[in-house]
C-alpha cells in the first residue's frame, strides 16, 4: 500500500486483526467486530501504529494476484476499520498517510487491480471514465492527446506513478493510454479537487496516483496474452510476463514485469475532408478548404507500447522502483483535423492518391529510490525518495496538410517536432510525528529540477516556392547573396542549397540549417531548466473522538515563477456509526507549461501562439463538502452499501490562455460540481454501482463552458454466474451533450474551380455533440486449472457510439470540426500464474 507513498503513518482504526488476504479477512474481521466495542468512540480510537509496509504474512494465492490486501505489514498487527480490509477503501493520496476513503480529507475514489481486471479496462483512461465527475478518454489535437479531464477542466491533473510526478512539463499533461500497462497496476487513487498543499505542482483540480505492483502482488510467474479487433484498436495484440519472489527470508523482495501492446489504430471518420486550414494567431485568420465528403482513415502502421516495471525492496526499508516505457504511434489524422490523404498532381495532368501518417514517440521512463524508517518508539516516521523522470516528445510530422491541387501545396505541408528529452530529477523528504493532544504532524521538503535542451523543429516544407521570400540578402553563400534562393530554369524555385542560411522570421532573422530536399532545422524551444523547492506542513488534530481537523500550508519556490503559498483545511466528522461528513478547503496551482513560456518565437516555421516568459502560475481554490456512509451491512443479501455525495465550488484564477495569439494570464473561472456514487456489494460477490456528476463551469472570458458535458453518469454491475469461476460484468458511461465551436463547410463557397469548398472565419457554427452512451460487457472465467488460469472477453462501446469530442478550447480556427473517435471493439485475454 505504501509502495507509492513517501512516508509511513498511523492507521486509525478500531480492531486488532491478524493479516489474511482477500475476502477471508472480511469474514474474520466481521467475526471479531461482533466481539469488540463498536460505536463512534471505538472507531476513532488509535490502538497501535503501523510498523512496516506492504508485505502480507501470508503470501498471495497463486492465480489471484492483487487479492492480498496491499499494505498488510509484516510483524505486528494490522489495524484497520473493518471495512478497510477492502482495498478500495484504503487510500494514501489524500492525506499522504494511510487512511480510509471515508476519513480522508478529500474526495477519493480507489480502483484496485482486481477491479481493473473485472471491468476489462485496457488503459488508465478507461478506468477514469468510470469515476464520477471525470472524463477519462478525452481527445485533443485529434488524438495527439488522450487525456483525463476532471470537472470539465483539461490539463489540471497531477499524475503520479508511485508518488513521483510524471506530469510532463512541456504541456502540463500526460496521455494515459497504453504507456502504463494496466496489468502492472496495483491500484489507482483518484482525488477530485485540488491537492497542492501536500502534493505541490499541477494538483490544480485533481490527482491520479498510479501505484504499481510489487512482490506482495505476485509469488511466481504470470503470463498474459490477448488480442482483439474493432473500430477502436484494430488488430490488437497484447502480451505480458511478470515475476515476483522473495529471497533471504523476505529481506529481499522482487517484482518485475514486461508488457507489450500493439494495434493498427482506430477507424476514424471525418464528416468533411480538410485540405488546408487557418493557422493559429498571431497568424492572420484565413479560409479553410474542405472537400464535402466523409472520409475514414485506413489502417495505420502498427502502434506499439513496450513497458517494463519493477520493484526491489531490501529489508523493508529501501525500495527501488521503475517504469521504462517505449512506444511508437501512428496517426493518419493530423493535429488540425486533416486526413493525410490527398491527390498529388502528376506531370501528365493526372492525380495520384497519396496517404501519409504521423509517427509519434511520447515515451516515459521513471525510476525511484526510497528509504523509510520509524523512530522514537514509532512516533516519528521518515521517508525519503530520490527519483528521475525522462519524457520524450517526437512527432513527425506534428503539423500537416495533405497534398492537394492548391498552388504551393501540391506536396502538402509537414512540420515535425522533436522536443527531444525532457528530464525531471528530484528528492522528497517526508516525515510524520505524533505530538501531544492528539496531534499528528505531517511535514516535508522537496526539490526537483526540470530541464530540456536541443529541442528542435525539423521542418519538411515541400513547397520550395516560398523560400525565395525568406532569404536574407548578403548570405555568405554566393548563390543566395542576392537575397533569393536559387531559382530553377523554368522560373520556378528550388529548395535552398544545403547549409546554414540566414532567413527572415517574425521579428528579425535567424539561421536555419538546410538539408537536401527542403528540410531544415531550427530551434523550437530555448534550452530550459527550472528548479523548484517546497516545504509543507499539515497537522491532523483529533479535536474530539469523532472529529478531526487538518489544516495545512505549503510554500513553493522556483527560479521560474514567484513563490507560491498554499493553504488547506479539512474537517472530518464521524457523525455516528459509519456516517461521515467532510468539509474541505483546498488550494492548488499549476506552473506555466514550457510551450507557453519557452517556445522560440523566431523559429522559422513556428506557427503557434507566441510564448510569454512572464506568465504567472495558475491557481485553484476549492470549497468541498462530502457526506459518505456505509449502510445496510449484512442486511439480507446485502454485504454493504457505500454511498457518497459531494459538492464542490472551485475558482480558477490567472488562467493561461491565448490572447490575440500570445499566451497570457487572463481571467477566472468558477466551477460548481455535484457528484454522487453508490456501490452495492452483495453476498456472493455480486455488485452494482451507479455514479453521476453535474458540473457547471463559467468563465470571465468565455462565459459558460460549453465544450465539456454538464452531466455524466456511470454505472454497472457484476454477477457471479458460477461463484468463484464465472462472472459477468456490464458497465456504462453516459456523457451528456456538449457544444463545439466549428466552421461550417456547408456554408462555404466553391474555390479552385469548384474542386474545394472554402469556409471563411464568419461561417462559424456551434455544433451540438449529442449525448454518448459507452456500453461495455464482459465475461471472466477465473480459478481455472488449479487456480492458475483466468480467461476473459470484453466488448467495448457495444452501441458503436461515434460521437466526437469538442476541442479543449472552444475555438474554430485550428480545430474546425469535431474530433472523431473509434467505435465498437472486442478484446479477449488469458492469464496464467505459476
Amino acid at each position, binding site marked *: 500500500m505504501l509502495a507509492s507513498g513517501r512516508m509511513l503513518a498511523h492507521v486509525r482504526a478500531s480492531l486488532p486483526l491478524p493479516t489474511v488476504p482477500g475476502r477471508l479477512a472480511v469474514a474474520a474481521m466481521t467475526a471479531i467486530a461482533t466481539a469488540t466495542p463498536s*460505536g*463512534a*468512540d471505538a472507531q476513532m480510537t488509535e490502538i497501535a501504529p503501523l510498523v512496516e509496509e506492504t508485505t502480507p504474512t501470508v503470501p498471495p494465492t497463486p492465480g489471484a494476484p492483487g487479492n492480498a490486501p496491499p499494505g498488510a505489514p509484516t510483524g505486528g498487527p494490522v489495524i484497520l476499520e473493518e471495512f478497510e480490509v477492502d482495498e478500495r477503501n484504503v487510500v494514501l493520496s489524500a492525506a499522504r498517510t494511510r487512511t480510509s476513503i471515508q476519513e480522508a480529507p478529500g474526495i477519493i475514489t480507489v480502483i484496485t487491480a482486481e477491479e481493473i481486471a473485472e471491468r476489462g479496462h485496457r488503459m488508465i483512461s478507461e478506468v477514469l471514465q468510470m469515476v464520477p465527475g471525470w472524463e477519462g478518454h478525452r481527445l485533443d489535437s485529434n488524438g495527439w492527446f488522450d487525456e483525463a479531464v476532471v470537472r470539465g477542466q483539461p490539463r489540471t491533473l497531477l499524475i503520479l506513478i508511485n508518488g513521483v510526478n510524471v506530469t510532463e512539463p512541456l504541456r502540463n499533461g500526460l496521455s494515459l493510454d497504453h504507456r502504463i500497462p494496466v496489468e502492472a497496476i496495483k491500484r489507482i487513487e483518484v482525488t477530485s479537487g485540488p491537492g497542492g498543499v501536500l502534493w505541490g505542482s499541477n494538483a490544480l483540480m485533481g490527482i491520479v496516483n498510479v501505484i504499481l505492483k510489487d512482490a506482495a502482488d505476485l509469488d511466481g510467474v504470470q503470463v498474459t496474452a490477448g488480442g482483439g479487433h474493432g473500430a477502436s484498436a484494430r488488430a490488437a495484440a497484447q502480451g505480458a510476463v511478470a515475476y515476483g519472489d522473495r529471497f533471504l527470508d523476505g529481506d529481499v523482495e522482487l517484482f518485475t514485469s514486461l508488457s507489450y501492446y500493439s494495434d493498427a489504430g482506430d477507424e476514424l471518420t471525418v464528416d468533411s475532408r480538410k485540405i488546408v486550414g487557418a493557422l493559429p494567431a*498571431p*497568424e*492572420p*485568420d*484565413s*479560409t479553410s*478548404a474542405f472537400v464535402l465528403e466523409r472520409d475514414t482513415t485506413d489502417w495505420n502502421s502498427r502502434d506499439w507500447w513496450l513497458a517494463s516495471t519493477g520493484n526491489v525492496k531490501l529489508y523493508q526499508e529501501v525500495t527501488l522502483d521503475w517504469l521504462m516505457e517505449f512506444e511508437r504511434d501512428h496517426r493518419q489524422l493530423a493535429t488540425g483535423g486533416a486526413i493525410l490523404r490527398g491527390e498529388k498532381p502528376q506531370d501528365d495532368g493526372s492525380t495520384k492518391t497519396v496517404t501519409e501518417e504521423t509517427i509519434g514517440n511520447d515515451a516515459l521512463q521513471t525510476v525511484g529510490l526510497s528509504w523509510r524508517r520509524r523512530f522514537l518508539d514509532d512516533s516519528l516516521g521518515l521517508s525519503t525518495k530520490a527519483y528521475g523522470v525522462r519524457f520524450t516528445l517526437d512527432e513527425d510530422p506534428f503539423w500537416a496538410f495533405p497534398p492537394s491541387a*492548391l498552388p504551393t501545396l501540391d506536396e502538402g505541408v509537414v512540420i515535425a517536432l522533436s522536443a527531444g528529452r525532457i528530464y525531471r530529477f528530484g528528492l522528497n523528504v517526508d516525515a510524520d510525528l505524533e505530538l501531544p493532544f492528539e496531534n499528528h504532524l505531517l511535514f516535508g521538503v522537496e526539490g526537483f529540477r526540470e530541464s530540456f535542451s536541443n529541442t528542435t523543429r525539423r521542418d519538411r*516544407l515541400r513547397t520550395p516556392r516560398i523560400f525565395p521570400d*525568406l532569404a536574407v540578402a548578403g548570405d555568405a553563400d554566393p548563390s543566395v547573396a542576392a537575397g533569393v534562393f536559387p531559382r530553377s530554369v523554368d522560373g520556378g524555385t528550388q529548395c535552398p542549397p544545403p547549409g546554414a542560411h540566414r532567413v*527572415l*522570421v*517574425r521579428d528579425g532573422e535567424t539561421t536555419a540549417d538546410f538539408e537536401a530536399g527542403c528540410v531544415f532545422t531550427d530551434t523550437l524551444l530555448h534550452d530550459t531548466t527550472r528548479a523548484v523547492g517546497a516545504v509543507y506542513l499539515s497537522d491532523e488534530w483529533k479535536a*474530539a*473522538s*469523532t*472529529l478531526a481537523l487538518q489544516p495545512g500550508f505549503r510554500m513553493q519556490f522556483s527560479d521560474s515563477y514567484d513563490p507560491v503559498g498554499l493553504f488547506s*483545511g479539512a*474537517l472530518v*466528522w464521524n*457523525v455516528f456509526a459509519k456516517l461521515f461528513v467532510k468539509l474541505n*478547503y483546498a488550494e492548488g496551482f499549476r506552473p506555466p507549461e514550457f510551450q507557453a513560456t519557452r517556445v522560440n518565437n523566431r523559429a*522559422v516555421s513556428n506557427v503557434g501562439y507566441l510564448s510569454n516568459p512572464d506568465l504567472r502560475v495558475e491557481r485553484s*481554490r476549492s*470549497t468541498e463538502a462530502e457526506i459518505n456512509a456505509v449502510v445496510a451491512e449484512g442486511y439480507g443479501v446485502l454485504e454493504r452499501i457505500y454511498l457518497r455525495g459531494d459538492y464542490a*465550488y472551485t*475558482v480558477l484564477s490567472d488562467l493561461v490562455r491565448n*490572447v*490575440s*495569439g*500570445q499566451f497570457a494570464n487572463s481571467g*477566472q*473561472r468558477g466551477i460548481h460540481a455535484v457528484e454522487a456514487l453508490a456501490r452495492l456489494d452483495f453476498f456472493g460477490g455480486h455488485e452494482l454501482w451507479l455514479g453521476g456528476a453535474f458540473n*457547471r463551469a*463559467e*468563465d*470571465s*472570458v*468565455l*462565459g*459558460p*463552458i*460549453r465544450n465539456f458535458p*454538464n452531466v455524466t453518469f456511470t454505472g454497472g454491475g457484476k454477477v457471479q454466474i458460477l461463484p468463484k469461476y464465472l462472472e459477468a460484468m456490464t458497465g456504462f458511461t453516459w456523457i*451528456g*451533450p*456538449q457544444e463545439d465551436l466549428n466552421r*461550417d463547410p456547408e*456554408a462555404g463557397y466553391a474555390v479552385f474551380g469548384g474542386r474545394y469548398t472554402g469556409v*471563411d*472565419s*464568419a461561417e*462559424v*457554427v*456551434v*455544433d*451540438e455533440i449529442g449525448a454518448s452512451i459507452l456500453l461495455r460487457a464482459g465475461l471472466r472465467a477465473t480459478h481455472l486449472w488449479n487456480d492458475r488460469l483466468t480467461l476473459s472477453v470484453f466488448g467495448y462501446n457495444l452501441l458503436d457510439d461515434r460521437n466526437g469530442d469538442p476541442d479543449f478550447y472552444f475555438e474554430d480556427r485550428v480545430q474546425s470540426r469535431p474530433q472523431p473517435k473509434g467505435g465498437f471493439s472486442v478484446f479477449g485475454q488469458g492469464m496464467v500464474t505459476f
Partner: protein
Amino acid sequence: MRSRSPYPVLVRHTRHARHALAAATVALSTLSACVEINRGAIVQINFQALDSNVAGEHYELFATVNGGAVSLLRFKAQDAIDNTAFPPGDGRPRAHCGGNPLTTPNVQLIQRWEPDFDAQRRCAPDQRIGTVDKFADGLRPILAGGVRLDTPIDLSEADGLFITLEPDTELDPRPGMSVLRAAVACGVDPLTCAYPEPRPPRRGVLLGTFVNVDDPNDCPFAKGRVAIVPAEDETVL
C-alpha cells in the same frame, strides 16, 4: 474518551462537532470568491472591402439591441506588411505582428482605437483585432483575413450592427456617420437575396451581411459577413 453512559458522551461530542461544523461552514463560505461571468459574445467578421482610415479618423462598430445602440469596438484599418514579399521602403510599415513570413500576406490590419492610440503598437495582443480579407500567397493560396472581437456585451438579442466613421477628436459618444450596416438574425442571414440557394439555419449563432448604407440596389453588394456567438450554454441534458 469513554464514559459509563455512551449517550452523554455522544451528545457532548456531537455538540462540539456541531459548533465546529458551523464555524467551518461560515469560514469556508467566505473563502470562496465569486467569478464575474462573461455574458457577452464572440463577433467574427470577414470584411471583403474596407477603406483604410486616413489620419484623424477611425471606425466604430455598434450593435442595436432592444432598440438601442451600444458601442462594441473602435478601430482603425491600416495597410501594413506582415511578410517579406515587399521590401520596406514602399511606404507601408512592417507590422511584425508575429505572422510568419512563410504564411502571411500583406495585410490590411484592424487595430483597436482608443484616445491614446499608437500605430506603433499595432501588433500588441490587446491591439490587433484581425485583418481585412485578401488573397494571400506563401503557404496560404486562399483568402486570408478575419476579425475577431470578444465583447462582454450580451448580443443574444441583437438585431443589427453598423459601422460609423468617427473623427479621432470626437468626444460625443453618439454614433456618427454610418458607412456599413448589417441586419442580424438567429441562425439565418436576413439578407437572403445574397444567397443563390436557401441555407439551413445555423445553430448557436446570429448571422448577417454588411452592406453600404447608401447602396441603392434591391440586393445590396456584400461588403462583409458577420457571425455573433453569444456566450450561452444551450445543452445540459
